[in-house]
């Protein structure tokens, strides 16, 4: 491979691609060529860098300079200044929200400082479409170690020592699952990677698949060896075209190198992988439903036992793990289970990848040691709440998860402590909410999602969730009664206890957790018929408080119905006959004058 003095790592995760990072690459290459720098400076397309809020992103090595929010028009100037004359361009450098100074180097940016990259060990450092660059970062070294010097039992033992638990949400110990899968003497066996990421606001699996597809292939092949399985399937959402594209490329490259197929690395072990794009049903992320879907049947969960490890895909022993779980496997086998277990808490070892979204400054993909506090995640990594708003809650675990209040900010995030708080690790969606969020409405949103996505097989989930949604709709419309809170709680517990699959068993969590931590908001909605966050349109009066009104006229400009009368030096007045309750005026008002 040719030596260049500088590598420009242009982020091409879905986030940065949608902001135009591929145009950047073309412009960079043509500009470097015009300047005669093509032999000195190389442009590399990488997977998601993680700091999606600042995209499109480019990192310059060897210095490690972090450029943000670049556009193709910036490129000629940047190339001349930095790559020709050696002067990094200050205006494209990162500026911290707390410290107003420019932070030139990636390693000094707080967003990156608190992270520990294990599953994402190659993010932003390799060309995701080039197997050689993966190999250069110890890629397939774990597989070659396993195939040349370890028995399947030793592999399973190492995974057990690591304490790795399933990263898809439930947290089942991976080593134990593999051991179960190995125990049954029925062939063929299958290994499945679950990339049917469906939680609102979650994009961990997509980013791993886009940034480092070979780590999944390697992890699955090692799993196949441990189980004595020779076929793997990756079930991935059809809505992830870039991930599917890169997986296809990766599989083709691995086959060309003989790292998939017959007699891998001369060991005599055969293994191959195929991709199955899912059709978009949330329930197909549930393992048994996923397997039915793979078989071409309707995706619906079935009663366990038998567990999938005994009778899964086509009735054969099958081990299914999440994308992030597989991404951890090569690192565990290469560095040892004890290395992995050296990070984390008592029951949760290693790290966890989170998709940090919502009203937080630094939206992006992060990986932190298990046991990191929510406060560190939201404030140190996330940079806090923008626009001088207050933190209200963090929603963790998607529709199966919970909303945790400010009093739980110091909770150490791991499987057990979240469980205790009535929440759930889930797959790693972390949505931060500020004080303009109504918790009743949030619970209603997630319940609505669960109702939409319920497969309909069992009554508690199909009917129970619908009844919960009706009650919540009643409350946000101002027709709630105090008994509704107890009804919701009772029904929620029944659904949790009697639902068929993991999704139904957790679907009431958003409602139950908001009642537990934000009961006063429910009460305000029911008793005072008022929505404190001014979200639930039916409970807003749409009246201007003339004392708070600064007579600026912004509300009048925002109103699409011309329902607001305002003249200079007089408070605005809303004409309720024309008002369609769209809330545009509330969002426009900087003084909170509309009630």
């Amino acid at each position, binding site marked *: 491979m040719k030596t260049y003095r500088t590598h420009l790592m242009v982020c091409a995760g879905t986030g940065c691609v949608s902001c135009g990072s591929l145009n950047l690459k073309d412009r960079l290459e043509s500009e470097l060529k015009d300047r*005669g720098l093509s032999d000195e400076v190389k442009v590399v397309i990488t997977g998601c860098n993680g700091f999606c809020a600042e995209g499109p992103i480019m990192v310059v090595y060897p210095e490690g300079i972090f450029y943000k929010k670049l556009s193709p028009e910036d490129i000629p100037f940047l190339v001349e200044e930095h790559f020709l004359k050696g002067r990094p361009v200050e205006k494209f450098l990162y500026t911290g929200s707390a410290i107003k100074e420019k932070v030139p180097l990636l390693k000094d940016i707080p967003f990156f400082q608190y992270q520990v990259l294990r599953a994402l060990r190659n993010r932003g450092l390799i060309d995701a479409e080039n197997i050689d660059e993966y190999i250069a970062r110890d890629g397939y070294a774990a597989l070659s170690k396993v195939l040349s010097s370890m028995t399947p039992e030793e592999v399973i033992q190492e995974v057990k020592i690591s304490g790795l638990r399933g990263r898809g949400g439930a947290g089942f110990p991976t080593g134990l699952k593999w051991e179960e899968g190995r125990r049954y003497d029925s062939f063929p066996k299958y290994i499945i990677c679950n990339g049917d990421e469906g939680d609102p606001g979650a994009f961990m699996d997509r980013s791993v698949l886009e940034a480092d597809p070979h780590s999944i292939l390697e992890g699955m092949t090692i799993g196949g060896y441990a189980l004595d399985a020779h076929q793997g399937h990756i079930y991935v959402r059809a809505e992830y075209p870039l991930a599917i594209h890169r997986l296809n490329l990766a599989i083709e490259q691995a086959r*060309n190198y*003989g790292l998939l197929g017959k007699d891998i690395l001369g060991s005599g072990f055969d293994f191959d992988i195929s991709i199955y794009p899912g059709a978009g049903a949330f329930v197909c992320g549930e393992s048994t439903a996923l397997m039915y879907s793979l078989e071409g049947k309707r995706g619906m969960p079935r009663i366990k036992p038998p567990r999938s490890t005994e009778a899964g895909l086509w009735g054969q022993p099958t081990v299914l793990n999440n994308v992030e779980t597989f991404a951890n496997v090569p690192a565990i086998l290469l560095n040892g289970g004890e290395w992995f277990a050296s990070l984390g808490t008592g029951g949760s070892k290693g790290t966890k990848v989170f998709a940090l979204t919502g009203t937080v400054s630094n939206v992006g993909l992060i990986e932190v040691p298990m046991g990191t506090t929510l406060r560190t995640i939201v404030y140190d990594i996330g940079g806090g709440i923008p626009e001088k708003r207050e933190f209200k809650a963090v929603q963790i675990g998607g529709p199966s998860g919970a909303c945790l209040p400010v009093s739980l900010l110091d909770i150490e995030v791991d499987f057990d402590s979240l469980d205790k708080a009535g929440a759930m690790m889930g797959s790693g969606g972390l949505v931060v909410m500020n004080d303009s969020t109504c918790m009743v409405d949030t619970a209603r949103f997630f319940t609505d999602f669960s109702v939409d996505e319920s497969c309909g097989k069992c009554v508690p989930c199909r009917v129970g969730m619908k009844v919960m949604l009706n009650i919540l709709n009643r409350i946000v419309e101002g027709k709630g009664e105090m008994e509704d809170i107890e009804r919701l709680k009772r029904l929620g517990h029944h659904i949790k206890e009697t639902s068929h699959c993991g999704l139904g068993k957790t679907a009431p969590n958003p409602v139950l957790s908001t009642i537990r931590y934000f009961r006063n908001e429910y009460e305000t909605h029911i008793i005072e018929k008022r929505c404190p966050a001014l979200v639930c349109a039916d409970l807003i009066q749409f009246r201007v408080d003339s004392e708070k009104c600064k007579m600026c006229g912004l509300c009048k400009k925002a109103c699409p119905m011309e329902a607001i009368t305002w003249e200079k030096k007089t408070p605005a007045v809303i004409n309720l006959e024309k008002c369609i309750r769209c809330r545009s005026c509330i969002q426009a008002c900087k003084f909170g004058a509309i009630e």
Partner: protein
Amino acid sequence: MAKLTIEDLKRIKEEVRSATILREGGFRAKINIHMGTCGIAAGARKLMSVVLKEIEEKKINDVMVTTSGCAGLCSREPMATVEILGNPPVKYCDLNEERMKEIFVQHVLNGVIVEAYALARGSETTY
């Protein structure tokens, strides 16, 4: 394509790693070639080519090459600064390809400052 053996895998790793290691830090030495307009006009680009060629041929993977703008002493260009990390940087002036090569071997690889071409200790600030 022929199927890989474990040895092939190791070979690919070593080859590609030496070309990509600059993304990972952990450098022993830093060569800064001054690329202001004056430096470029005086032939700084040739120095850059020499350095990159040496690194590629000798399979060096712990030397970082970077550029900087005009240091203010245009009459003594082309210039370069060599820093063995942990030691003060040394600025060289009036360079050409042969001298750059000599500095690379003597100072960067063997750690002996080539006093004949040295201007001073110290350097302007770069990242």
